[in-house]
């Protein structure tokens, strides 16, 4: 308890509401969602398609705005800030991993990892290169740092995407089915890598998944239905 008081949660959401569409086609996609991500924890969100998992992820990642509710990242309220500030916060505090890696194919693996660092603008070119190389080493791709990303396999590209998500040492990692496009071997490898990094670096990871095997090994599993978290369970390890 005392530790929680001294370290605010990486992310805390209260009563998030979100409507999509207009008038007759208006859908209530999030209905009062509450969620807290403590450092060093891995959270899975499961639920049927259309239950609001991705919508929640985009709001938590400041890519979308809720219609009501409260959101803090690292103890700082972030819902009243403008688009520029939200972008800066996203750049500094949030790392995204998507089902599709979305690497810039003309860039090398290393250059892809350096993209968020360039925006942050705190490191020199040499420092960025050194950090990108370290991150790629960490995901097992140090030897392929200078390779164009289009010449990497699907699993390798997803690992580059993970390294890129960690580029600015964010508080929170948000992953939308990060293993959904990979075979089981690569899926296990990528998920293992993510959880190891989160525990090792004391980050928080929230991942959306349809894969029960992955959900079972997360610290927390939040089940969503009709825009609400209907059940939260803690997996004891």
């Amino acid at each position: 308890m005392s530790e929680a008081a001294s370290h605010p949660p990486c992310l805390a959401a209260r009563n998030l509401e979100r409507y999509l569409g207009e008038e007759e086609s208006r859908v209530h996609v999030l209905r009062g969602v509450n969620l807290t991500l403590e450092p060093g924890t891995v959270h899975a969100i499961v639920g049927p398609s259309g239950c609001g998992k991705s919508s929640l992820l985009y709001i938590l990642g400041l890519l979308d705005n809720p219609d009501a509710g409260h959101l803090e990242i690292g103890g700082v309220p972030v819902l009243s800030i403008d688009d520029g500030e939200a972008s800066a916060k996203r750049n500094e505090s949030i790392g995204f991993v998507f089902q599709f890696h979305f690497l810039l194919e003309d860039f090398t693996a290393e250059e892809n990892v350096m993209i968020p660092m360039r925006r942050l603008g705190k490191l020199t070119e040499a420092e960025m290169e050194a950090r990108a190389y370290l991150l790629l080493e960490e995901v097992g791709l140090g030897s392929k740092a200078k390779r164009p990303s289009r010449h990497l396999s699907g699993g390798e590209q997803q690992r580059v995407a993970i390294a890129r998500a960690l580029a600015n040492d964010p508080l929170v990692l948000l992953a939308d089915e990060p293993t959904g496009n990979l075979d089981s071997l690569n899926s296990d490898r990528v998920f293992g890598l993510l959880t190891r990094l989160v525990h090792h670096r004391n980050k928080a990871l929230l991942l959306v998944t349809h894969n029960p095997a992955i959900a079972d090994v997360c610290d927390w599993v939040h089940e969503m239905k009709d825009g609400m978290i209907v059940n939260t369970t803690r997996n004891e390890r």
Partner: protein
Amino acid sequence: MPVKPSLYIALRFTAARKRSLVFSLSGVILGVAFFISTQAQTQGFEKFFIETVLGTSGAITIGDRFQPRYDPILTGGNGTSAAVSGQQSRKYYSGVDNPGLLIRCLEDYSAVLAVAPYVEGNATLRTNFKDEVIKLQGIDLVAQLRATTLRGQIIKGDLDRFKYRPYGLLVGTLLADKLQVKPGDIVYLTGAQGSPHACTIEGVFQSGINAVDQSRVYTHTSTAQSILNMPYQITSIVVRLRDPQRAPEVAAHFEQQFAHISRSWQDREQGNLAIFHALRLSSAIVVSLIILLAGFGIFNILTMTVLNKVREIAILRSMGYRRGDIQGIFLFQGLIIATIGSAVGCVLGGILTYSISLIPIHMRGIMNTDHFVVAWSSSHYVWAVLIAYVSVLVASYFPARRAALLPPVNILRGSGQ
């Protein structure tokens, strides 16, 4: 210092699409080069024509005296005014009144470099086998050489011999060809009234203006006054100005000040100048259209790039890139194309202009030249670059804006399907 992130990404995007880059660049390069070379040609001919005109007839020609019209409204000292009826049109008196005084006054103006009086009238020039009506111009050689480029126009004969021969003549080259005369030949000049005078051809000149070269004959002032029966008369004064571009305002001032008709070269040659102006404008419009078309091509390429890169744009936004950064990526792409295209286009334009200046062309008419005349002016390059930048940046702005406004959530949702 790290490169601005949007510029870095723009450079990489631009370099990665080599075919699009070549297509975009070639449009800008050709547009800029054509603009420079066509402007150099049209302005070259125009400047050559103006130099010819100034060298032959000066910046201003002062002619007949006139009586100023009085103001139809007379204003009294106590604020009263009265209308005067029976206003008459301006009266003209042939020739320059008191030319010596007028020349001294003109020479006092700082804008005036030189003045040359002359007397002009029609006369008949007779050779052994042909008569020709010519325009005889009696000049003060020393003054004429200061006010015009007559010395450089002499293509046969000797000006010094002319100087010391009271009945010496300088004949226009086309007239000399027509009459088959050469320096040393004796011809006879007859005014409207009077007997023929034996004169010697001392030189042949080529002004470059056909109308002058086929009808004008120079002699000394006193000789012309005698032949034309215009004793002591001066019909006009040629004025050479420090800045010929100011001729209209200076001419207007002279006319008001001295009550003599004063015509600037722009006024005298307005017909020809209008043609040159129209040609320049027309070529500028045509070539600007080429650059605009290049801009349209760039617009299409960038729009396609935006459509092809929606996922990359969304992921950049998810990594914290702002709308302005995304817009910057595509604007920088346009800027890169405009910069490289303008630089290469300027070099190519210079090479084209030089190559064109070497092309032989036999032109006789309002001016004489044996090769293409080009003008080297930095303004052609500045305008070409300016037009290229404006059209490319306008062409880049809309795709860039579109990219910046793409909602990342919609793209990320759609891409997962």
